[in-house]
């Protein structure tokens, strides 16, 4: 081992806040909406989750990289987030079955990051000021130039991104022999959602984001799954339209995260951009039907309007967040459709909520 001091890098936020740190990953420049994740494990799963598309992530846990990376722990076909901010970045890793270090991994995937930053200060700042765009660079050291570059980045509000991360062609997951055919609308799906469905006897056909109901229905699925994904739900109009039709024919439907927001939108319920979103592995959710609570994995910057759900005669709130009472789950009163805001597949995160997949499968029987 040799003592190395990394090259300098800069981080600039939309509101002019900036700091210096060390360059990690691939040297260069990157931009995105800056948000924080408080999980203490599971960085690789986070970086490959398509919902983080075009986002710069602050990992709040003190050390990142300690256990390297492993090819099998990808949540999609590649790295999806756009930049990393952390306190301590570890080149050295310890894990017998690791595929390599996080540094090699980021370099290979063209991800630029910054370490040795007071992440806690940043989180407190974002907590007060709300989510905003940011730029990381190890090349541009002039603040004015950084500002010019940052100004080119569009706001996440009103941004449709699912089309960009979704599969281009339909594909199948699971065995054809499996009893339940599930049509999956891929708005940026995580691999472990499909794994959870398949483990429970599903044969999934994953469709591109902009697939119409008619095309999906041709496959004669037993049920529909609307996935998570990045961007503003309100402008993902094509998916809202698809869901409306599924509901019209009263077919079983389960939505996660963006899929949950789209189910709400399809019922005329508005979504809104949250101050700084929920991102972490420790969010408390209460199931109002059973009275039991679960520790959930979350990653969302938009949410469903609580009052609008309460006043909607077709909808019912099934789950709420115990920290801030935001909506975590809804179901339709007279239809076989339900959705949750959080991630029951929870990779990374606790496995408390996997019963929701059982619930969906039992709807198909």
């Amino acid at each position, binding site marked *: 081992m040799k003592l190395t*001091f990394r090259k300098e890098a800069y981080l600039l936020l939309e509101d002019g806040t900036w700091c210096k740190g060390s360059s990690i990953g691939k040297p260069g420049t990157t931009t995105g909406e800056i948000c924080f994740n408080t999980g203490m494990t599971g960085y690789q799963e986070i970086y490959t989750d398509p919902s983080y598309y075009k986002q710069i992530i602050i990992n709040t846990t003190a*050390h990142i990289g300690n256990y390297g990376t492993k090819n099998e722990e990808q949540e999609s076909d590649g790295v999806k987030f756009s930049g990393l901010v952390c306190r301590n970045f570890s080149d050295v890793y310890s894990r017998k079955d690791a595929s390599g270090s996080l540094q090699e991994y980021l370099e290979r995937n063209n991800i630029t990051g910054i370490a040795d930053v007071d992440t806690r200060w940043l989180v407190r700042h974002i907590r007060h000021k709300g989510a905003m765009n940011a730029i990381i660079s190890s090349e541009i050291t002039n603040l004015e130039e950084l500002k010019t570059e940052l100004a080119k980045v569009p706001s996440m509000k009103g941004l449709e991104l699912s089309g960009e991360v979704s599969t281009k062609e339909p594909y199948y997951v699971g065995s054809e022999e499996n009893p339940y055919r599930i049509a999956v609308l891929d708005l940026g799906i995580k691999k472990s959602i499909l794994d959870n469905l398949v483990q429970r006897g599903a044969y999934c056909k994953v469709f591109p984001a902009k697939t119409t109901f008619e095309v999906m229905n041709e496959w004669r699925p037993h049920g529909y799954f609307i996935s998570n994904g990045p961007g503003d739900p309100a402008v993902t109009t094509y998916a809202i339209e698809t869901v409306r039709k599924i509901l019209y024919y009263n077919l079983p439907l389960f939505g996660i995260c963006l899929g949950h927001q789209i189910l709400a939108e399809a019922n005329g319920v508005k979504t809104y951009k949250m101050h700084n979103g929920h991102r972490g592995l420790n969010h408390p959710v209460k199931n109002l039907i059973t009275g039991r609570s679960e*520790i959930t994995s979350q990653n969302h910057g938009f949410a469903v309007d609580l009052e609008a759900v309460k006043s909607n005669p077709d909808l019912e709130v099934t789950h709420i967040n115990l920290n801030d009472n935001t909506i975590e789950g809804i179901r339709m009163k007279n239809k076989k459709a339900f959705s949750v805001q959080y991630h029951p597949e929870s990779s990374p995160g606790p496995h408390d909520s996997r019963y929701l997949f059982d619930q969906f499968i039992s709807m198909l029987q």
Partner: protein
Amino acid sequence: MPRDNSIKSVLIIGSGPIIIGQACEFDYSGSQAARSLREEGIEVTLINSNPATIMTDSVTADNVYLWPLEKKSIIKILEKHKHIDAVLPTMGGQTALNLAIECEKAGIWKKYGVRIIGVDIKAIETTEDREKFRLKMLELGIGVCKGETATSFLQGKEIAQEIGFPLVIRPSFTLGGTGGGFVNSPDKFDAALTAGLHASPIHEVLIEQSIVGWKEYELELLRDNLGNVIIVCSIENFDPMGIHTGDSITVAPAMTLPDTIYQKMRDMAIKMMNGIGQFAGGCNVQFALNPDTNDIIGIEINPRVSRSSALASKATGYPIAKVAAKLAIGYNLDEIPNAITKTTSAYFEPALDYVVVKVPRWNFDKFKGADKTLGLQMKSVGEAMGIGRNFQEALQKACQSLEIRRNGLGADGKELTDLEKITHSLENPSSDRLFHIKDAFHMGMSFKNIQQLTKIDKWFLSQIEELYLIDKEIQKYDINTIPEHLLRTAKQKGYADRQIAHLLGCLESHVFDKRMQLGIKRVYKLVDTCAAEFEAKTPYYYSTFDGENESIVSDRKKIVVLGSGPNRIGQGIEFDYCCVHGVLAAKECGYETIMINCNPETVSTDFDIADKLYFEPVFWEHIYEIILHEKPEGVIVQLGGQTALKLAEKLHRYGIKIIGTSFQSLDLAEDRGSFSTLLKENNIPYPKFGTVQSAEEAIELSKELGFPLLVRPSYVLGGQSMKIVINEKELEEHVINILKDMPENKILIDHFLDGAIEAEADAICDGEDVYIIGIMEHVEPAGIHSGDSNAVLPPFNLGNLEIKQIEQHTKKIALALNTVGLINIQFAVKDEVVYVIEANPRASRTVPFICKAYREPYVNYATKVMLGDKKVKDFKFNPHKEGYAIKVPVFSFNKFPNVNKELGPEMKSTGEAIYFIKDLDDEFFEKIYSERNLYLSR
């Protein structure tokens, strides 16, 4: 389910005296639980025989019984308080659980209509019985250590074949694991099996799969009546399997676990807790992980609040005991608010944005001849915790907190350079292995070799290797040439100014001045359970070198109370008791109180005791920077024992006000020459004495003083290296020994008053008036350290004349020393003359004992006197005097099978109990009196 309203009065069982393996963490848990229940309007009755505890204060509970933890005491309490409807036995360690089980078996709870809450007796049985535990785990599908018992050679061979190597042989019914051991290969097995079978009195051995070297983890769980479970904290052991977790360096959160494996462990932990019984409360689960295969084995499960839960509470800010008590009375987790944020829910899992490292504190120097190798039995007496923004910072802060005269991890000139010794230490872990790992890097030992010898995870070792590289980098410079980024990096990685000064070859103050010029200052971050996601309302801070400072200084007048650091022999929970009361009293006087301490087991480090808690080493530079930041009116040093007191000189030198007795007086009392002049001037007798700095001078002096002599170094704790010698040969040997450990120490030599009776007095003085709070007579003769003696309050065998002399001497000395606050004076009484042996103008070990015996808040009074808020004459003293109270020392010799119980001038006891007697005809008193000379040695 909301709170169960049928519970109106709860009995909490404490853990008794402090012994190795069961320390003051249970004062923390008992106090939190009591406060938590009383918040709900529940009446709390407490039983604990340990007087030096906050839990047994009237501020904590409604009814307090300082009685022995026995069935009889429980019956007496239940007879008296017929309305007690529940007992909470999970807050007092194994002692409380065992007593609860004993009472259950005797049908006592049933007879008095008392429910056990917080645990299920069947769950305890499952977890205590190795075989039941194993079967339960197999039933739940949890991996356990493979193992079987053999009663014959043939059977043993068969089992070994099934399990494979390496394995462990554990003979049944032998003390301390005699005759057992690890067997790595088949060729060594036959001999080991034969030896094991012979060693066991019933010729039975347990043959078990060896998991030495696997990684070790702990999870802290809470569960409510609905079945909601949270994991409060994951803890990773730096030391792999094979060393008791209490003797392991531990780290939170887990550092080297990927999410996939962590979640598997989390699922298993929940399954295990659900599997052993349905109860609402806390639980600790331990796992071993095979780093090669990722196999996970369940090691044990403790259905109660433990040492690890105290650590987890302090590490995360999540008050486990407080919440566990609420769960026990029926609340569900989602109904309880998060005590730190106050706005979010207690049903969540804390997220940390810092690292916590706990390092145990050993006291092998007190147990001559003890086996110092760490293994399956716990040997440490206390622990210190460091919080930092990275592992290295937290580790070095923990080392700075240990009070072992190290300034961090090495870089202090105390490195070991004997490669053979280092190799042995790496392979056979003892108290200083951590330091020797770094020494091994310095000696050029290869990373691979170090890893093979220690089996410590590569990531941890590389962190230490990096510190070694930084040492070498710093050494390339001097104070004028060291680059700013290197100095900043070193500070961020936890280096003390002293370490950097050592590496640069300059003074500590030069490093301090240089970094102040460069603006490299400590900032303070909050422990908030949520990684800053939500706003936190609780002022619980740690220092680091980072961007933003979160500790906002108020404009109130402030007082700093210095804590007593890690528990060790001679400095235990008594001082934490005093600190807590000091804080509460200063609050009453209108001050904002600031607590500085680094012991995770204590009540003083609960975030709701002081107005501001800095969880920091009680180490000069940390304290000084807090003082520079907070600008308090002064610092209270006389409540935190020797740890706090020895910082007085430097505080004084830096112009910081010491509250109460001044540094000059503290120094006068410690300096034997000036002190005896003071005694002479006041016509107070004292044993003839002198100071020497060589063996030759000592022999010269002995001719003048006459044998026997009491020999000891100056400025030490608990009679460290204190010895009685009877001839020149012994004298010479001991002086040489002391000088070897502490070169340039001034050695004190007193004429030893053979056969004298020892007594001591504690008093409060405001500089004008003196009030003696208690006089105690020791049952054992002079020569046994006061901390190891049975002390009787008031004296049982001293005449009026003698007591009068004690009173007069005490008052004279207290005034002559200009004492403001507490003072303790030790006496030897021989032939009706009372000699003064020493005076300590500070809170002593006996103060909490007197407070409890006389039911008076003396520390509160003394603090108000120190602060100048009150005079001695302002108080209406009203001690409750009835019969006698005995302070009974409790030892942990059974943890060291090779060490004889021998008592002398050096303190050996780890804890104490209080025992009340009506008169001297008491059986217990008769027993200790008749045995008073039994253990005396030199």
